[in-house]
Structures are given as structure tokens and as C-alpha cells.
């Protein structure tokens, strides 16, 4: 196992504000690693430290086996794709892509050949002489990626490059980017605030909040086994149900809700009775009108406050005195639940082990 990027206890402080706080992680060669976090969580600062535009206040960054301290960005074997791409408007596509190669004093013929190859690779053959302003959003994206990939960096850093695209194009580019990464085998470090981008493309995702990593895991685990309440809320939709723990046995905590009802809450960790706890339950884990005979189900009577129709992602909003917040419930569009209207009272239920329960610090 070859480690391409290793970040060891890196912190960054700006006067009194700590942007990045003791972050450690390693990225294996050829992997797609994402850093997912809300805006202002410090992910861009972290990326800029890897690229060399900021100096860490503490800690070290290794690329390959080389310590990057005091190495300026123009001599690091990493390339950054900027949020707004930063293509040079005064040059055409070929000059943009050849820019880095020319800085390495490669011969004109060599540059021409490499530019043609990489344009082929990103599906833009024959675009050499186009001006940047003649390109569409998706094409600019690909030119920016080509401009960095042509230098064959050890690690390619991407700073929310899909943010400026419209939804359809973003979905398409997500898949393209993933395919491209698999083809070229370059290590990608991708930062985003869009959880779907991170989940779809990455081999591993780190969830970042207030300068710290909350969890580094495979996308599936991040979704099904969040390590903290923040991850549970940030990755995917989740319903929160606060209460007091009144008993714990074998991965299931007894949670007494503020309304007085008691429910069973699945959990990954030991919860001591008497502690304040929160149960997080996914909208798709909730069964609408569950059959009487189903065992091990928490059942609650709710009132449907509205139906949010969104094709396959349609959801119900439900309220109940037992629930502290409005619940989001997936509404499968298989015509089974067409009779449900806003204002109806229905029973919902979920498996004892379907949710994730955390103690509240």
C-alpha cells in the first residue's frame, strides 16, 4: 500500500481563529478522497495548505515520502483545480493546457502531442484553438481538469469545481469525473459541501466540521454508521428525536421522550441510563402504516402536515406531540400511499435497530 498524501497533525490559526484543528489523514495511491463539510468549516484552508498557498501553523504534510514544509506551490507535485477554474482568458485551450508543460521547458512538439492526448482523454478533441469564452461550463471544467492532469501530478486537488454548474450538468460531470479518475489512476482529493458529490465519487470521505475531522470512512459507512450526531445530520437527511436514556441492553437503548412515551433506539455505543440522548432516524427507514404483526417496531401516531412531491424523492412532513421536530418520511411513488392527504392521521413505525442513537454531550 503506497501512501500518496499524508497529513499529520496539521493546524492552521488566523490570529484568534482556528480554521483547521489537528487534522490527520492519509490517502492511498489512486484513491478518490473527499473532504465534506459545510461552508466555513476549514476545508478550503486545508486544501490550500496541501497546495502550498498557506503554511500550516503546526504539523506536517507529506506528498509521496517528501515533507512539503517550505516548498512553494510551483515546486510541489500537486495541482489544484480552483473553484472558479481560473482558466487564463488571454490564452486559448491549447495554451492553457500547455502552460504548465511550457514552464517545465518541454519541447514544442512534446507539448503539442501531450495536449492533443489529454484533450482526447477529456472528450474535447480538436478544441485546441478555441478561446476560453467560447466554451460551455462543462467544457471549461474539462479544460481545467486537463490543464492539471497533463502535468501528471502525484495528487490532484479539486476545490468544489462543480459548484458553478447547473444541476443536470453537475450530475453528469460527477459520473464523468469518477470515470476519469479510475482511468488515469491519479490520486484525487476533492472538497465539497455537497454530500451527494462526495458519496457518489469517493472511495473515502472525511466529514469536516469547525476545523476538525468528525469521521473518515467509506461512503456507505458514513451513511449507515455515522460516528457523531453532526455526521448523522450532515450526510443525508435525518430525523432527530431527543430524549432521556432509561435503560440499555445489547445495542438498544430505551429512550424516554419529552412527551412521556418510551421508544427503543438502536445504537453503536454504550449509553448509560440517565444520560441525555438523541436518536437519528433516516426518512427511508420509516414505514408508513406498518402491518399489525410486524415485531420490534416503534409505533407513533402522526398527523401529515404536508406532502412534498419530488418524483422518486417524494416525502411526507409529519407532526406529533411525541416528536420534538417535524419528521421527514420517504413516500414511495408506487401508488400504495396515494390515499394519504395533508391533515390525515396515520401510524408510522420503524425497526428498533433502524436508527442511530448518540448521547448528548
Amino acid at each position, binding site marked *: 500500500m503506497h501512501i500518496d498524501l499524508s497529513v499529520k497533525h496539521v493546524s492552521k490559526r488566523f490570529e484568534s481563529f482556528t480554521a483547521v484543528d489537528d487534522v490527520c489523514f492519509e490517502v492511498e495511491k489512486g484513491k478518490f478522497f473527499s473532504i465534506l463539510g459545510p461552508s466555513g468549516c476549514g476545508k478550503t484552508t486545508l486544501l490550500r495548505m496541501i*497546495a*502550498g*498557498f498557506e503554511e500550516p501553523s503546526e504539523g506536517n504534510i507529506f506528498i509521496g515520502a517528501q515533507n512539503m514544509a517550505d516548498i*512553494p*506551490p*510551483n*515546486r510541489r507535485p500537486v*495541482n*489544484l483545480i*480552483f*473553484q*472558479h477554474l*481560473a*482558466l*487564463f*482568458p*488571454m490564452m486559448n485551450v491549447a495554451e492553457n493546457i500547455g*502552460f*504548465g508543460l511550457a*514552464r*517545465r521547458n518541454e519541447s514544442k512538439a512534446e507539448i503539442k502531442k501531450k495536449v492533443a492526448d489529454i484533450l482526447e482523454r477529456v472528450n474535447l478533441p480538436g478544441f485546441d484553438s478555441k478561446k476560453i469564452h467560447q466554451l460551455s461550463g462543462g467544457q471549461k471544467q474539462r479544460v481545467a481538469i486537463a*490543464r*492539471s492532469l497533463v*502535468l501528471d501530478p502525484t495528487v490532484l486537488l479539486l476545490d468544489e469545481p462543480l459548484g458553478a454548474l447547473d444541476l443536470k450538468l453537475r450530475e453528469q460531470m460527477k459520473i464523468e469525473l469518477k470515470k476519469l479518475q479510475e482511468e488515469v489512476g491519479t490520486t484525487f482529493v476533492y472538497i465539497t459541501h455537497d454530500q451527494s458529490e462526495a458519496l457518489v465519487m469517493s472511495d473515502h470521505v472525511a466529514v469536516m466540521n469547525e476545523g476538525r475531522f468528525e469521521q473518515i470512512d467509506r461512503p456507505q459507512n458514513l451513511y449507515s454508521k455515522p460516528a457523531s450526531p453532526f455526521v448523522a445530520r450532515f450526510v443525508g437527511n435525518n430525523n432527530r428525536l431527543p430524549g432521556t436514556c432509561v435503560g440499555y441492553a445489547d445495542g438498544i437503548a430505551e429512550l424516554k421522550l419529552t412527551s412521556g412515551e418510551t421508544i427503543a433506539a438502536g445504537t453503536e455505543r454504550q449509553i448509560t441510563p440517565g444520560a441525555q440522548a438523541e436518536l437519528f432516524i433516516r426518512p427511508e427507514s420509516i414505514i408508513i402504516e406498518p402491518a399489525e404483526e410486524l415485531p420490534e417496531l416503534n409505533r407513533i401516531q402522526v398527523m401529515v402536515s404536508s406532502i412534498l412531491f419530488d418524483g422518486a424523492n417524494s416525502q411526507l412532513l409529519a407532526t406529533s406531540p411525541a416528536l420534538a421536530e417535524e419528521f421527514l418520511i420517504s413516500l414511495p411513488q408506487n401508488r400504495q400511499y396515494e390515499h394519504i392527504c395533508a391533515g390525515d392521521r396515520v401510524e408510522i413505525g420503524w425497526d428498533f435497530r433502524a436508527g442511530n442513537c448518540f448521547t448528548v454531550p
Partner: protein
Amino acid sequence: MKTLAEAKSKLPLFIFLTPILLWLILLIVLPHLDLLRMSFRIENDYGDMVWSVNNYLEFFREPIYWLTFTRTALYAIIVTFLTLCISLPVAFYITKVAPPKFKGFLSLLLLMPFWVSELVRIYGWMILLRESGVVNHFLLRWGVLRQPVEMLYNDVAMTMGLVYTSMLFMVVPLLSVLDSLDDSLIEAAFDLGSSMITIVWKIIIPHAMPGIASGSIVVFMLSLGNYLTPNLMGGKNSLWFTEQIYNQFIASFNWNQGSAFGFLLLIISSLIIFVGLKLTKQKLSGVIQ
């Protein structure tokens, strides 16, 4: 009805345009037309005024005239270039390096010398540089010099004076054009392996080209047409072309020759700017914006 409404809507426009039109026509267009007419008139042997191109031919016949002009144009080009070399780092510092809260203050500092007239500024320089001036005083006191040196009345002093006088007109267009340069372009170039010098040549200067061109045109024209600075700081042998024009009008009282020189200055300097624009592949319309 419609035409009446149209006429009505245009009336305020004409009212506001009248002062500027009067200004342009009475003070600029008419005098120039008269000068143009005068430049083609000479006195013949009988003392009568006749039409002729002799005034223009005189410029090419007498080496002192066209040599003075060449010298003036060359120095104006040097001044423009020096002003650019000084202004580009200054403008870059103000727009990209200085903390945002100081930007306004720094621009104000640049502007401040222009609150006093050019004459006062030049006299300021003269007080500093002349033989009994401030600079000489301190150099003597510190023992750098034994004898005071006359620093005025040479080409270096004149060039410096002209650069100082025209710096603002270069910095202001550069400030606006560098302000529109996205920082991430510089970072991207750096990330792709460029050195600082390549970034300046490949990214900053191409981006700033319209600003450089418009600043250069203004500085070149101002230097070429400057009378005060070459005369006061360059002394009597500064041989600036505007002095030749002045001499024709005031000393020789040959208004016809003077107006011919005036028009030659206008035509040849426009030509130099045209060539400059062609060389840098800029369009006048893009530069003026």
C-alpha cells in the same frame, strides 16, 4: 403630436449639451481651424500673405526642428516606459498585496501631490535638487560630496520630473484593470509551476494590457506636450519641441510657422500612438473604456 413629444424629450438634452458644445466649438474647434488656416499662409517677397506648404517643409528642411522633435518623442517614450515600470508594481501592491483597509488611503497618497499645481510641484523639486538645495546640503554635511553639484538642468532631472508628473495618469488605469484580475489566476499560474517573472509576463501584463495602453497614451501625450517641466527642470538646453513652438509664437512672432509646428506635433504624436496600438495589438475603442 409625436414629433412634438420627441422634440420635447430632446430639449433637456440640448440644454445640457449647450455648454459643452459651446466649449468645444468656441475654444477648441474654431481656434484649431484658424491655426490650420494660418499654418498654410506665408508672407511672400512683396509682404503679401499667400497660400503655401512652406511652413511644413521648413520642419524637414531645418535639421534643428526635426531633431528636436525626434529627441522629444524619444524622451517621451522613455518617460512613458519608466512611468510604466514604476506604476505597475505600485498598482499591483495597492490592488493585490496591501490590506484592503489601506487601499483607499494608499490611492489617496498617490493623488495628494496633484492637489497643488504642476508649477508648485516642479518648484518643490527645484528646491530639493538645485546647487544650494536640500539634497546638496545634506550630502555636503554627511561628507558624501566636497563641492555642491548642480543636479538640475540636465536630461535625467527632466526625465524624473516628467515621470513624477505623469505617474498618477498611469497608476489610475492600472489600478482599475488590476482590480479586475482574479487572484486565482495568479495562484493557478503559480500552482502550474510558473515563477514570479513568468506570472508577470504571461498573466499580469496580458491582462493589464488595455490599462497599460490607455495609461501609456495619456502619459506619452502629456509628456510630449509638456512645456513647464522640460523648461524648468531641463533648463535652456532641454530642447523640448513645445519650446520650439513657443519660440515661433512668442520670440520670432511667426504665428504661421508656430501653428504648422503645432499641427505637426499633433499629427506625428497621433501616428506614434497608432503604431504603438498596432504593435501591442490593442484597439483604441477597447483602450478608452
